[in-house]
């Protein structure tokens, strides 16, 4: 017993002693991301993408002659935990930058820590528009992902093309992202097609186990088409319950989903039960069902599959990869690892990604478009793929 006490004490002391002066030849990036719980499905491949970017950059000699070091931590998709980890990464591990977080709950929370500590923070996935709107906007927060306004415009532009659609319904998870997603889509749609009426809005909770009542209630309102912001396991469950109820048939497969259910991750989970014919999106279609695949993307996917030791890879890795790319290109442009310099350099900076160039605008947003298209079955793959993926909203030249 006494020995254990001594050991415990020794460990505690060892942990509290500050690490020997920080090696000056590494740039440390703290990366809180969910690695457990339902959202680890996304967290794991995003981390893989970030790790691959770090490996590639280091193999090419690092940034400003220094190696990048990624410090991943499990945020459990919990805002409090993400904040705790971010603080710990800054104080104990003396990280130079923060990247990561998954949900629209974690990102704004970590953003406040970045603001307090004046450390650049790059969010790869959170879509809540408020993240970069005043008063939350500060010099150190950047977003490489899309936001709900951007995806709403893309979704509305596709919905508007269905000229015979007069009634539309929405179904979205009942939390910040889902609420904003539906609202921003409706705002955008009203501008394009004032003749369309919204006949029903369903709000199942995030992680709902049984969508049957919501599906029935929505079918009762007989919408011509649906804007559905469900994703991940929720979308899988929803589909499995909706198909036998005749839901997709009732709306002629006119369902648009802006929440990346077009990724191969989602398609593989559903296999042959995927509701072919719906319109979905992805940051990275991975498997390109068309001719417009960028050459950089081909190399990226091949490297990714080797790195992940997986036959197909993942449609989520790219956002982690882009976050690290943005940061490293920012450091290079600033010629400094000081957050103040890097933050200044990143505003207005154009950086390369495997799917083309992205630019941080004055609001620290890339307004990243996504690849949209109809989900089809192709003999070469045992899962649904996006047919002729097109970037939406169409990128404006700048």
């Amino acid at each position: 017993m006494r020995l254990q006490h001594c050991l415990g004490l020794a460990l505690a002391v060892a942990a509290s002693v500050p690490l020997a002066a920080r090696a000056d030849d590494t740039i440390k990036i703290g990366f809180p991301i969910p690695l457990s719980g339902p959202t680890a499905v996304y967290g794991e491949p995003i981390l893989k993408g970030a790790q691959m970017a770090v490996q590639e950059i280091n193999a090419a000699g690092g940034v400003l002659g220094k190696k990048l070091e990624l410090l991943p931590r499990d945020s459990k998709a919990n805002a409090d935990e993400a904040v705790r980890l971010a603080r710990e990464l800054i104080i104990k591990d003396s990280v130079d930058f923060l990247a990561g977080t998954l949900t629209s709950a974690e990102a704004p929370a970590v953003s406040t820590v970045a603001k307090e500590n004046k450390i650049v923070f790059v969010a790869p996935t959170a879509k809540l528009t408020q993240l970069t709107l005043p008063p939350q906007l500060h010099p150190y927060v950047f977003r490489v992902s899309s936001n709900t306004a951007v995806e709403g415009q893309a979704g509305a532009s596709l919905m508007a093309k269905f000229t015979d659609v007069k009634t539309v319904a929405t179904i979205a998870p009942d939390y910040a992202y889902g609420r904003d997603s539906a609202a921003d889509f409706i705002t955008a749609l009203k501008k394009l097609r004032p003749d369309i009426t919204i006949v029903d809005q369903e709000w199942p909770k995030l992680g709902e186990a049984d969508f049957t009542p919501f599906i029935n209630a929505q079918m009762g309102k007989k919408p011509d088409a649906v804007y559905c912001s469900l994703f991940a396991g929720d979308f899988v469950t929803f589909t499995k319950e909706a198909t036998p109820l005749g839901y997709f048939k009732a709306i002629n497969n006119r369902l648009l989903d802006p929440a990346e259910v077009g990724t191969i991750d989602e398609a593989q989970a559903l296999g042959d039960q995927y509701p072919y014919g719906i319109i979905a999106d992805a940051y990275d279609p991975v498997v390109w069902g068309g001719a417009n695949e960028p050459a950089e993307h081909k190399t990226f996917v091949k490297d990714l599959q080797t790195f992940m030791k997986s036959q197909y890879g993942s449609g989520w890795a790219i956002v982690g990869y882009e976050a690290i790319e943005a940061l490293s290109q920012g450091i290079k442009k600033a010629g400094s690892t000081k957050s103040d310099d890097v933050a200044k350099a990143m505003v207005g900076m154009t950086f390369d990604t495997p799917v083309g160039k992205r630019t941080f605008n004055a609001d620290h947003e890339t307004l990243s478009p996504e690849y949209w298209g109809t989900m089809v079955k192709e003999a070469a793959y045992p899962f649904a793929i996006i047919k002729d993926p097109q970037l939406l909203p169409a990128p404006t030249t700048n």
Partner: protein
Amino acid sequence: MAPSFLFSQFMGGLTTAMFLFLIASGLSLVFGIMRVINFAHGSFYMLGAYLAWQGVQWFHPTGPGFWAASLFAACGVGVLGAVVERLFFRSLYGREELYQLLFTYALVLILGDAAKFLWGTDQLSVSTPPVLAGSVQIFGSTQPLYNLFIMAIGPLIAFLGWLVLNRSGVGRMVRAAQMDREMLDALGANVGTIYTGMFVFSSFLAGLSGALVTPIQSIVPGMDVLIIVQAFIVVVIGGMGSFWGTFWGSVIYGEVLSFGILIFPGFSLFSVFALMAVILIVRPWGLFGRPL
């Protein structure tokens, strides 16, 4: 509102109800008889789902293997229940509830990580068995055959459970153990075996419900924690430890949820929690429970 619409809404509520009942029945049984609040019941349910997926891969990936896989999953979780009860729960009976809560919560974390370790974090999916893949038209509404199957299984389990508990020798012993464990022990009955048996049966039900849910839900890490809250609501509404209470609690939960979203579309969970609050105020022991 069209009658066919109301009917399909009612049937939707019933589907929700019967799935919940499958899960909550085991929880209610263990609580009612052994006075153990088993937070890990949701984890057993999750393991049932994962084992069913595993079984389907082994037996017959395209469909007919589903039934064998479900049985395999239910039995597998039952065996796990036996091990957990014999090794750990045994020393917790009669202790303060706090210890049981802490222990079962620890189990939740351990089993959650174990599942992640074994099956990874990808979402998994099982196809509906071909026999039940279709749907039928009833009163102008489309009813999936699989949902109808679940609606039949629920009452069947409730009836069998009631039959065993109230009309058999084993059931008499179990009820005696519930009323006065020490007296039964003194009379020479093997209470330990009864408890193990009950726990195994409860785990079996959890595993079975986890397996049966796979054709209509995705299998993801975290499904354990999401379901346990709903199962608890149902058990609380019905009355802790009452088998029929849990059954009707599930039906009420399902229908209130189903029709609640028609009245308050923006607050899907509001009606259910409001109902639970009202019941807890008016009848703290639940609809079918006995005052504590």
